[in-house]
């Protein structure tokens, strides 16, 4: 297993994390950052304004950084898995309707006035999560033919149900005008809640989903030969495909529950990894996870600093910046028939 791709991507990740902690709408001079670190090491009480800066670092920037890293990792990993499963360069984590299902769940939750309590505040992410998972189960059930689940059927059922869910969501949004702005903000994407709560809540699901995906690298490699070939090579195709699909969807559902629908990361990051580091899924999945985390964090840093104190929605930044970048990478690798 070559080490160099991992070194590069981890270096990128570390750089972006440093940027994310150093940059925000409140400018913290590097000298003050140094003094804060020294103060922490000496365990002394910091004077103002260092105290406020330190608070901003630990209670606002750090949890947000971690949440965005986890979301990006989830999207990168599940994007790579979807592309491997469907053997389709256009596949992204929202292919079979996860985004529409999550959006419908979230908007449904927003049309009810929940009590202001821990569980009340969890209503929107929980229903988004449920909506995403139920959509996947429904789409798999609809696409089933006998004992197999053909990919074409999956995509068609996913697109059809996705359109249906989107239409319902749009209708709900038109009706509940008070919550319209909140719904749009959620659908566009971006870190919503502050603090460590969201991080701790999604961590188990992401650990399970991403862990399962990393372990399925070999199976995905075998699947690239086609269903029949893979079956003949001894891989229980339907079972493995369904398991990988569920793991990827669980990961995506957890990612969108708190962060909304952020596009492009799941589509583009695996492609870039493939162009640079090859098609071996045992390597591609962990690399996509690491780079997905870094790429989304970079977009988030950009989103919150370019027009401070206003914040651009992250989904817009990923599209605006990601698309040209990907086109550039694609043109450079034009001569490689990598797919």
């Amino acid at each position, binding site marked *: 297993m070559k080490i160099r791709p991992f070194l590069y991507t981890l270096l990128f990740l570390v750089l972006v994390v440093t940027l994310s902690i150093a940059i*925000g*709408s*409140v400018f913290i001079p590097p000298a003050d950052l140094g003094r804060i670190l020294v103060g922490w090491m000496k365990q002394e009480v910091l004077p103002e304004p260092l*105290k*406020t800066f*330190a*608070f*901003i670092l630990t*209670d*606002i*920037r750090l949890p947000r950084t971690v949440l965005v890293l986890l979301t990006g990792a989830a999207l990168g990993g599940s994007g790579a898995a979807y592309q491997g499963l469907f053997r389709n360069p256009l596949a992204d984590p929202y292919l079979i309707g996860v985004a529409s299902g999550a959006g419908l769940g979230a908007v449904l939750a927003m049309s009810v006035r*929940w*009590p*202001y*309590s*821990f569980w*009340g*505040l969890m209503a*929107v992410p929980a229903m988004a999560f449920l909506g995403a998972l139920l959509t996947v189960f429904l789409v798999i059930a609809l696409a089933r033919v006998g004992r197999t689940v053909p990919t074409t059927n999956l995509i068609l059922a996913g697109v059809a149900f996705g359109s249906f869910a989107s239409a319902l969501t749009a209708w709900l949004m*038109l*009706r509940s*005008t*008070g*919550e319209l*702005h*909140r719904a749009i*903000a959620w659908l566009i994407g*971006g870190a*919503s*809640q*502050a*603090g460590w*709560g969201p991080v*701790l*809540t999604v*961590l*188990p*699901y992401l*650990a*399970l989903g991403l*862990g*399962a995906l990393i*372990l399925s690298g070999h199976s995905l490699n075998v699947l690239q030969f086609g269903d029949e070939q893979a079956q003949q090579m001894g891989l229980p195709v339907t079972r493995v495909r369904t398991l990988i699909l569920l793991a990827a969807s669980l990961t995506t559902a957890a990612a969108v529950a708190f962060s909304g629908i952020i596009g492009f990361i799941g589509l583009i990051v695996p492609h870039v990894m493939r162009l640079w580091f090859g098609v071996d899924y045992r390597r591609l999945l962990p690399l996509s996870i690491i780079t997905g985390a870094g790429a989304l964090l970079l977009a988030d840093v950009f989103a*919150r600093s370019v027009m*401070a*104190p*206003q*914040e*651009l*929605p992250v989904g817009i930044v990923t599209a605006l910046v990601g698309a040209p970048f990907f086109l550039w990478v694609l043109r450079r690798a034009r001569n490689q028939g990598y797919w």
Partner: protein
Amino acid sequence: MSGKIGFLLLITILLAACSPTGSATPAVGSMEPSASTAEGATPITLIDDLGRTVVLAAPAQRVVSLAPANTEILFAVGAGGQVVGRDETSDFPADALALPTIGGYSGFNLEAIVALHPDLVLAQGGGFNSPELVASLEELGLTVFSLPNPTSMEGMFTNLETVALLTGHEQEVETLLASLRTRVAAVDEKIMPLSYAPTVYYELDATEPSKPFTAGPGTFVDLLISRAGGLNIGSALEGQWAQISLEQLVVANPAMIILGDAAYGETSEKVSQRPGWEMLTAIQTGQVFPIDDNLVSRPGPRLVDGLEALARLLHPGVFK
């Protein structure tokens, strides 16, 4: 493979056990309000729109406003000097424009809010500022109060009193309320004997001229139009942003068209040029008027200005 999956499941269950399960305790944090408690001052305890009990040791001296209506209310009760931050859409009064902004349409900037060291963050309830935002601010150790969205003029007056209590202007607000109530009573008095209530179409949005949006029942616009002696044709429809088709509009044939979207460039000339609209009596008689939408949609003291503006449009003979 199954051994590894089993190991993963174990780790997952352990991690899941770490997830927060109880109600979030307010973070003590390092953010303490800078206001010192006066000797013998009683703490201010109020319940906000989200059912939260908010306690202030002393009237707030550093307030961040998260809604334009809140900014207007703060300045109106005399607490303008105590406001340290506003949202981008707060544009009244002119003094507010000098204040630093902390976000608005595309989300609020938590870092900027924290850096201002507020001892009170004033949010607007009823969906304007989301509960997630309030929770995030609470998590950071800030005191947040969510003002309920009023459904009547009295409700708006109550909000004025609440904000005055929070900022220590109880006496000033009494003067303000007295003058506002007098003005409202003056309008009511003149409207009462009138027998004619013109039908009004209040336009909220007409990007699609064949299916424009008007103020539905239960909105403040609807309330103010009735109180100003008019009949809102939108009150027969459903929803707050009620969509009306051109056909229904032609049948209703309002006596007057009030352009709430005048700020977005709609003028009476443009309206008369819309295909199919020339049938309407209001256009033929030139009864198409713009209005500053902020006067009738922001739940603040300027609603009284809005009431008077509507009354002047609807019954010009009685109101000069």
